[in-house]
C-alpha cells in the first residue's frame, strides 16, 4: 500500500497507471464503446478508404471498416495477448529462477545455462523463427513470445532468490527445520514479488510492441482480427493516400506501451530503488 | 601575528529552513594545527564544505571566511583552491576508480599549480616520497583499487600538498583505516605539517587523535561553538558541560556517546537558547531563553555557557 501511495505521488507513474486503467476499461467495454462493433469482421466495400469524418472518426480501411471501432476492439486483443504471454512466461520463468537460485550445483548451473541459450538471440529474432516454424498465427506468436520472454523472469527471480537466500530470516527458517518448498513459496517468493511485478509490467509493454512487430511482419495476428500491427501492415499498401489507416493504430500502440512503460518505471522506483538498473 | 584563517560568524542555512551552522568563528594561526570536535551532526563537515566551496545544492553560507587576508566565501573558495589542501575522510571512495591515481592528481596541479607537466611530475614524485609511498613511479600509473587504504590516504595527502598550500583541511582522515595505519598516517601528517610549517584544520571526533596532533581545539555542538582553546588546557580542564561529558563518557576515546542522554537535535528543530540545554545536567530555566555568547575566559580560551563548570571560573 505504501508502494501504491508512493506511485500515486509520482505524476509520471500515475499518468501511466491512468493510461493502463483506461485501456483496460476500453478493452472491457469495447463492444459498447465502439460505434461499429460489427466491423471486427464485417466489411463494407462501398465505403472503403474514407478519410476521418464525423461518422468515421479515424476514417475507414481498405474493406470499409471503421478504424476507430477497430482500434477500440484491438485494445482487447493487445491486452489479452500481452497478459497471456506475460503470465505464461512467468509460469515458466519464476519456478526456474526459484529452483536455480535456491539450489547449488549442476541443476542450478544447467538451468541458468539453459536460460542463457534463450537469451543468446534477440527476442524478436527468436520469436520470428519460432513463430514461422510453428505455422504462423496469433496463438503461435503468443507461444513464441512466451518462450522468448520467460528467461527474463528466470533471471530476475534467480537474482532475488540468491539475495534472499543469504538473508538472515531464511537462515532462521531453515534453522527451525522449515521445508525448502515452504520457505520458497511462503517467504522467498513474496519477497521477490515486487521485482517480478516490475518485470511483468515492463514485459507487458514489451510484449505489446513485439506482438505488433510480429503482426506487422505477418507472423502474428491474422485477419480479420482487429490487430494494430496487422492494420499498419495492411495500411502500407494504401500510402500515402490513406494516411489515417496507418496512423491511428500506430498511435494506439504508442499510447498503450507508453502507459505500461511509465507504470513500470514508477513501480520500479516505488518497489525498490535497487532495481533501477535491471532492464531488459 | 595575523591569523591565516579567520572564520567569523559563519552561518549555513538549507533551503527549507534547516540551520546547520549558526555563527561559528574559528581562527587558525600560521603553523597551527586546529582540531574541530563534536558529535556527528554538529556541523563539522558542513564547516569544511563551506570553506572549500562545496556545499550541497540549496545551502547558503553567510558570514566571513578570511583566508590569507581575503574573504573566500563569495566566490565559493575558487581563489583559494590550491592554497587550501584537502584530505578527505574516506580514501576508498574519494578517488575516481576509472582514472589512474597519478592523472587525478595531475588534473589538480594542472589547474592550480604553476610550472609545466614535467615540473608537476617531478614535484609529485618528491611528494610521494615524502608521504613514504613505495615505488612512486609505479604508483602514478596505478588505478586506485590497486592501492591499500593507507597507501591511498598517503596519495591523497600528497595530492593535498601538491599545489603548495598554506592550509590543509582534513576531514577525519583516519576513520576509515585500521588502527595501525591510523597511527602511521597521523604521524605522517604531524611530521609534514611541522616540516613545512603548514597550518591545518583537523576535523575529528577522536580525542586521542586530537591530543596527539592538535595545538588547539574547537568544540562544536549543534552548529555553534561550545568552547575553544589550546588542546591541553581544554582536555585537562573542560569548562563547557558538553565537553566534559564528551570526555567523561568515553575515556578510551571511543566513538560512542552513550554517556550523554538524548541526541543531537535535528537541524530543522533546534532548541531555543543554549542548544545543549535539553541534554545539559546543569541546565536552568533561563538556558532555554537566551543564547549564551562565546566569550573569552582566559588567554586563548573561549566559552559559550551561562553555567560553566566551576573549576575554572
Amino acid at each position, binding site marked *: 500500500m505504501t508502494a501504491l501511495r508512493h506511485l500515486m505521488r509520482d505524476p509520471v507513474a500515475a499518468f501511466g497507471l491512468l493510461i493502463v486503467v483506461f485501456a483496460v476499461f476500453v478493452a472491457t467495454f469495447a463492444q459498447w464503446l465502439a460505434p461499429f462493433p460489427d466491423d471486427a*469482421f*464485417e*466489411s463494407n*466495400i*462501398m465505403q*472503403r*478508404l474514407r478519410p476521418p469524418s464525423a461518422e468515421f472518426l479515424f476514417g475507414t480501411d*481498405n*474493406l470499409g471498416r471503421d478504424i476507430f471501432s477497430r482500434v477500440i476492439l484491438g485494445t482487447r486483443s493487445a491486452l489479452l495477448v500481452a497478459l497471456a504471454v506475460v503470465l505464461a512466461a512467468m509460469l515458466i520463468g519464476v519456478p526456474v529462477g526459484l529452483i536455480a537460485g535456491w539450489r547449488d550445483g549442476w541443476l542450478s548451473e544447467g538451468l541458468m545455462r539453459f536460460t542463457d541459450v534463450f537469451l543468446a538471440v534477440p527476442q524478436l529474432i527468436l520469436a520470428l523463427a519460432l513463430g514461422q516454424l510453428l*505455422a*504462423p*498465427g496469433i496463438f503461435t506468436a503468443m507461444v513464441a513470445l512466451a518462450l522468448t520472454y520467460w528467461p527474463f523472469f528466470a533471471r530476475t527471480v534467480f537474482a532475488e532468490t540468491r539475495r534472499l537466500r543469504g538473508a538472515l530470516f531464511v537462515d532462521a527458517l531453515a534453522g527451525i527445520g522449515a521445508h525448502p518448498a515452504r520457505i520458497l513459496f511462503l517467504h522467498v517468493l513474496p519477497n521477490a514479488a515486487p521485482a517480478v511485478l516490475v518485470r511483468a509490467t515492463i514485459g507487458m509493454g514489451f510484449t505489446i510492441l513485439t506482438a505488433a512487430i510480429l503482426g506487422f511482419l*505477418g507472423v502474428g495476428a*491474422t*485477419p*480479420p482480427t482487429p490487430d494494430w500491427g496487422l492494420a499498419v501492415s*495492411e495500411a*502500407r*499498401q*494504401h*500510402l*500515402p*493516400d490513406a494516411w489515417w489507416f496507418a496512423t491511428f493504430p500506430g498511435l494506439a500502440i504508442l499510447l498503450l506501451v507508453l502507459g505500461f512503460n511509465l507504470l513500470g518505471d514508477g513501480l520500479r522506483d516505488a518497489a525498490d530503488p535497487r532495481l533501477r538498473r535491471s532492464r531488459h | 601575528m595575523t591569523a591565516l584563517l579567520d572564520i567569523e560568524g559563519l552561518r549555513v542555512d538549507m533551503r527549507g529552513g534547516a540551520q546547520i551552522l549558526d555563527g561559528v568563528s574559528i581562527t587558525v594561526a600560521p603553523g597551527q594545527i586546529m582540531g574541530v570536535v563534536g558529535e556527528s551532526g554538529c556541523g563539522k563537515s558542513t564547516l569544511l564544505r563551506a570553506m572549500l566551496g562545496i556545499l550541497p545544492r540549496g545551502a547558503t553560507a553567510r558570514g566571513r571566511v578570511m583566508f590569507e587576508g581575503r574573504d573566500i566565501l563569495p566566490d565559493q573558495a575558487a581563489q583559494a583552491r590550491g592554497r587550501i589542501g584537502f584530505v578527505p575522510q574516506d580514501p576508498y571512495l574519494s578517488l575516481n576508480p576509472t582514472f589512474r591515481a597519478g592523472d587525478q592528481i595531475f588534473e589538480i596541479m594542472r589547474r592550480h599549480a604553476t610550472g609545466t607537466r614535467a615540473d608537476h611530475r617531478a614535484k609529485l614524485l618528491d611528494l610521494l616520497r615524502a608521504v613514504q609511498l613505495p615505488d612512486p613511479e609505479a604508483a602514478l600509473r596505478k588505478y586506485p583499487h590497486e592501492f591499500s587504504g593507507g597507501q591511498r590516504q598517503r596519495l591523497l595527502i600528497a595530492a593535498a600538498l601538491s599545489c603548495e598550500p598554506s592550509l590543509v583541511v582534513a576531514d577525519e582522515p583516519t576513520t576509515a583505516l585500521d588502527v595501525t595505519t591510523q597511527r602511521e598516517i597521523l604521524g605522517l601528517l604531524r611530521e609534514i605539517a611541522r616540516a613545512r610549517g603548514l597550518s591545518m584544520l583537523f576535523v575529528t571526533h577522536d580525542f586521542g587523535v586530537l591530543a596527539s596532533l592538535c595545538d588547539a581545539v574547537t568544540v562544536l555542538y549543534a552548529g555553534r561553538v561550545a568552547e575553544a582553546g589550546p588542546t591541553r588546557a581544554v582536555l585537562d580542564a573542560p569548562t563547557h558541560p558538553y565537553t566534559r561529558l564528551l570526555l567523561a563518557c568515553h575515556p578510551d576515546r571511543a566513538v560512542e556517546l552513550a554517556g550523554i542522554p538524548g541526541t543531537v537535535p535535528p537541524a530543522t528543530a533546534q532548541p531555543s537558547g543554549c542548544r545543549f540545554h535539553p541534554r545539559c545536567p546543569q541546565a536552568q530555566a533561563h538556558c532555554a531563553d537566551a543564547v549564551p555568547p562565546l566569550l573569552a575566559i582566559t588567554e586563548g580560551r573561549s566559552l559559550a555557557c551561562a553555567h560553566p563548570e566551576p573549576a575554572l571560573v
Partner: protein
Amino acid sequence: MHLLRSAFLALVMLAAQPAQAQAPRPLVWGDTLPATLDPHAIFDVPSQFVLLNVYDGLYRYQGNPPRLEPWLAESHTVSADGLTWDFTLRAGVKFHDGSAMTAEDVVYSFRRLLTMNRGPSAAFTPVLTPDRVTATGPLTVRFVLSSPYSPFLTAMPLVAIVNPRAIAPNVVNNDWGAAWLAVNSAGSGAYSVLPGNYQPRVSLDIQRFPDFFRGWAGNPRPVETVRARPVMETSTRVLALLRGEIDATDSYLPTDQVERVERNPRTRVARDESMRVFVIRMNNMRSPFNNRDARLCLTHAFNYEGFNNVILRGFVVRNGGPNPNNLWGNPPDLVPYAFDLTRARAHCDAARAAGVDLSRPLEIHVQNELEQTVQAAQMYQADLRRLGITLRIVPNTWPGITSSTTRSETTPDMWIHWVSTYFVDPENWVGQMYDSQFHGTWKASSWYSNPEVDRLLRAARTSLNREERQRLYADATRRVVADAPDIWVYNTVNLRGLSRRIEGYTFSPVGSGGEIRLMSLAE
C-alpha cells in the same frame, strides 16, 4: 608544356566526371526476381524474366493472344502416332561466350533438366526420359515420348537451352553446375548477366548481347543495360515508379494505384488482358465440400461484382470457369455463377437436408504477402456469415500451402491463388487442375474426381487434332463448371506501371511483357 597539357587533361577529366554520372540512365526494372538464375531449377512467374531475356528455348510465345513461334528451332515434325518429335535447329546461333549452338547442346540442356528433375521438368517427366533425347545431326534433335502428349510443343518454351561449355568448368559433385548457374548465366539470349552485381532477390544487372541470333535490326535503340531492382512493398514500388527511381513495376499493380500512376506525367499503366485465373479452391474430398449443393451454396455466396468492380475497380474480367475466357477450348457459352444469397441459402438448405454439417468453421488459407487473397477472403467471410457459415482466415505462404497439398488430408479446406500461363494450352488450366491423375500437385488441389472428365481430358491430351481437342476440352470444362469444384473469380487484366521513357513494351501472357529486347528508351 607536357606538364601543362597533362594538367589540362586532368582538369577535363575531372569536369567530365559528373557528365559521366549523367550518362544514359539504365533501365531500372522493379519486378520481382526469381530465387535462382538457373532456368532448370525453378519455374515460376518471376523466373520468366531470366528465361526470356538471358536464355532461349526452341519455341517461344509472342504477342497477345500468344502465338507459338519457332525460336532456336526452325521447324519440327511429329510422327503420326504422336510419339516421335524431330526438331530442326536454326544455324548460326551464338552463346554469350561466342560458341555456336549445336544439337548436342540442346540434348545436354534437356538431359540436365530431366536429371535434375526440378521446376519445369514436371511438364515432361511423365512422357520423356533423358535417354530419349538424341541428336540426329549437327542441327537436328529427336524426342521420343513414351505416350502421345499433345501439349508437348506448347511446353517447349519452358526449357532454356544452356551452353555446356560454359557450365562444364563449374561442375562440382556432379551437380550439373547447379551452384554456379544459380548466380551466373550460360545462355544465348538477348542479354547476358553481369555476375558481379548479382545479389539474389536484391539486384540483377543484365547487358545487351550484340551477337543475339535474331539481330537487333528491329530495334534501332535497344536498351544497353538493365538493372533489375525488385521493390518488395507494393506501395513503395508504385512511389518509386512515380519518382522515377524505377522504370517498371511488376504486372500486378494494385487497382487502387492505377489512377495515380496515370495522373503522373512521367508514368503510365499498360493494361493487357492476360491469362491468369483467380480461383478459390475447395477440398472436394472433405465435408462439406464433397457435397455438390454445399459447393454451389459457396459458389453463389462470393460477391464477384463487388470484388471485381469495387475492390479491384473493374480492372479484371469475370471468368466463369477454370480456363481464361480468351483461351481456345473454353466454351464460349459458359454462364458464370452469380452472387445470389437466396440461391446460396437454398443450396445450403438442400445440403443440410442431405445431412451435410455446415456448422464447422471452414478454413481458408490466404497468401499473406498477396493482399488480394486476403481481401477476397475477408469479403467472403463477411458474406458467409450471413448464411450462418463461419470462415476462418489462415495466413500462409505459397510454399507453405503447396507443400501441404500433396495429400488430401493436409490440403486446406479452401485456399486462394492464381493459375498463371505456364504454357498456352487448356492443359495448363482445366487439364492439370481437374484430371484426377494430377492429385497431389497444387494445381489439382481441389481433389476433384470425375471419371467422365478424366476420360475427356486424357483424350484431349493425346489427340493431335486441334478441333477434336477443342471440343473435348469444352465438354470437360462444361462438366467441371456444372460440378462447381472451385470458385473461379476473374481473369486478370495485367496492370504494369511503366515510365513513359519505355517505348516498345509488348505484352504477352507468357512473361507478362518482360522481354527487354523489344523495348527502347526515349531520349
